[in-house]
């Protein structure tokens, strides 16, 4: 209720940026992005750079040497594992794996949810019924058990295969969100106006509807990537991930197997865990700032806060 009191006290503030997201679609997110957006972007960019340079920085993450389970030192900045692998090198290599999984699974989630969510809602009728049914079925299937069964069944344990499997079990939620939004955009007058102008169905979908779905699609991508990174960490931790320490989750798996916690080898499991937490938080922050742009009620709060601070000074 404090929020509405603030709103009442300064009612004109909420009107200072009328209908921002609705008016301009996705293009203004970057322009007026809050600190959340920029912090999230900065952290993601950092991880993306590490991931891209991973093969150069850590060409051989599984190289072993004689001094196992060393605490951090100048020679091994993050110490070594029980068989003498450099943890920093492993974390860098793991970054590449985890980021690839996030991006690929996020993109696949978006593609699948666009086919079944946007496509179904746009075409309507039987297509909508069929795609809704399919996404509802996928929605009620519990994710992790299905994931475990499917990864167990799939013989190849390539990182890309795991990304595909993760997105296969997690696209349904995004599809429902996109379907709802498509139904709302589809019934707007400008879509009818385009039909009256005899635009082709494809053009209406690509030029009239899709640009106005971009904020939601972006947010679903970020959400999908976040979910995929976490799911992969979970799978790897259970020993179903990519073999050979190629992701943060699998580092945790090996640390757990070697009883790193009871040996007090914190340098082994804290860095990958922290990486997962920080990247997850960064993706979450981006998602929150997109949400703020889409949802005016959240945005008002964000607009009010800095103004109130300034007034306090």
């Amino acid at each position, binding site marked *: 209720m404090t929020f509405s009191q603030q709103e009442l006290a300064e009612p004109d503030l909420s009107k200072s940026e009328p*209908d921002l997201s*609705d*008016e*301009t*679609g996705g*293009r203004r997110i970057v322009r007026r992005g809050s600190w959340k957006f920029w912090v999230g972007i900065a952290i993601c960019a950092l991880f993306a750079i590490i991931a891209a340079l991973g093969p150069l920085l850590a060409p051989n993450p599984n190289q072993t040497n004689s001094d196992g389970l060393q605490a951090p030192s100048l020679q091994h900045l993050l110490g070594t594992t029980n068989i003498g692998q450099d943890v920093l090198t492993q974390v860098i290599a793991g970054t590449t794996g985890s980021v690839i999984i996030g991006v690929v699974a996020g993109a696949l989630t978006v593609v699948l949810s666009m086919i079944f969510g946007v496509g179904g809602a746009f075409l309507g009728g039987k297509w909508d019924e069929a795609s809704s049914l399919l996404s509802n079925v996928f929605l009620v299937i519990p994710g992790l058990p299905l994931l475990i069964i499917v990864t167990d069944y799939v013989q190849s344990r390539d990182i890309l295969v795991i990304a595909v499997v993760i997105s296969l079990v997690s696209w349904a939620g995004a599809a429902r969100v996109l379907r709802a939004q498509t139904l709302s955009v589809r019934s*707007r*007058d*400008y879509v*009818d*106006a*385009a*039909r*009256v*102008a*005899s*635009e082709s169905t494809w053009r209406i979908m690509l*030029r*009239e509807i899709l*640009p*106005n779905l971009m904020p939601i699609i972006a947010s679903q991508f970020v959400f999908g990537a976040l979910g995929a990174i976490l799911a992969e960490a979970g799978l790897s931790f259970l020993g179903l991930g990519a073999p050979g320490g190629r992701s943060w989750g699998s580092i945790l798996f090996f640390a757990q197997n070697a009883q790193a916690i009871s040996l007090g080898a914190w340098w082994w499991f804290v860095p990958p865990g922290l990486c997962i937490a920080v990247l997850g938080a960064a993706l979450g922050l981006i998602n929150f700032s997109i949400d703020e742009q889409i949802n005016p009620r959240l945005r008002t709060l964000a607009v009010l806060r800095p103004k109130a601070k300034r007034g306090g000074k």
Partner: protein
Amino acid sequence: MTTLEALHLRKDYRVRGSGWRAARLQAVDDVSIIVRPGETVALVGESGSGKSTIAKMLVRLVDATSGTVTLDGETIGQGRRATKRYRSRVQMVFQDPFSSLNPALTIRHQLTRPLRIHGIVHSAAEEERELLRLMESVNLSPAKTILAKYPHELSGGQRQRVAIARALAPRPEVLIADEPVSMLDVSIRLEILQLLNDLKLERNLAVLYITHDLATARHFSSQIVVMRSGRVVERGPSDAVILNPVHPYTQFLVRAAPDPKSAPWIVDPNRHLGHPEVVVSTENLELTEENTSVHWVRSWDDDAAVNTMLASLASAQTS
């Protein structure tokens, strides 16, 4: 130019979730409208009376359950190409200029598309010329600046002018205006209606003006059709319908639009007794080109809703 004849239009919607058999809602029930070039016909009624459904059927956004629509007596087929040809002759201005223009596209894009789709222009220079001509015809200037803008950078009146320009782009002969000013500020409503009127005279358009505002309906149209719950209840020349409304529902509409210059309207269900020229019948008037000037009223003896309305009015007056 072109006369739009829509005869016996009917639209049923299936209502879901009402028992085993899907109930049917008659949104439009046997409505006929004839609009001649250079003439405005006003379609008046409260919200939910089926006005917008008629507009959507006339531009083929909604398929009619039955009925025929002809342009100069010519029936135009249902295929994709035929519909495109039909829509190059019949265009529509939407109610809300804040939602009828895509926020993600520039004004130039939104005006260029109909020009290209309907093959009005064949070269870049021609396109530029046609765009400027369109902007000029709806009094939007400076044209170049406005063309580069996005809808949210324009005012409501400017947006509606753009929407009118878009409807005019395929050079239609019939224009459907679905409450074109109801979302605009009162101060600019008249300008937009005047613009539509000027365009009608200039281009000899047949205009169907859908509204719930009786005053502007009378001022801008020669014929008024009053609808209630999907049916025509009264039709005739504008002055006859507004000055001498016979159907109780029309009288209620007139009473609801107070005129400061005259005394409040008194609803009198027996008004037709003093006006023998008004046709009161239970059957729809068979609409032809000739009898659009007949003042016709649907008999309301068996219409429960109207009788309830009259009864409540009577009790209010006696108490």
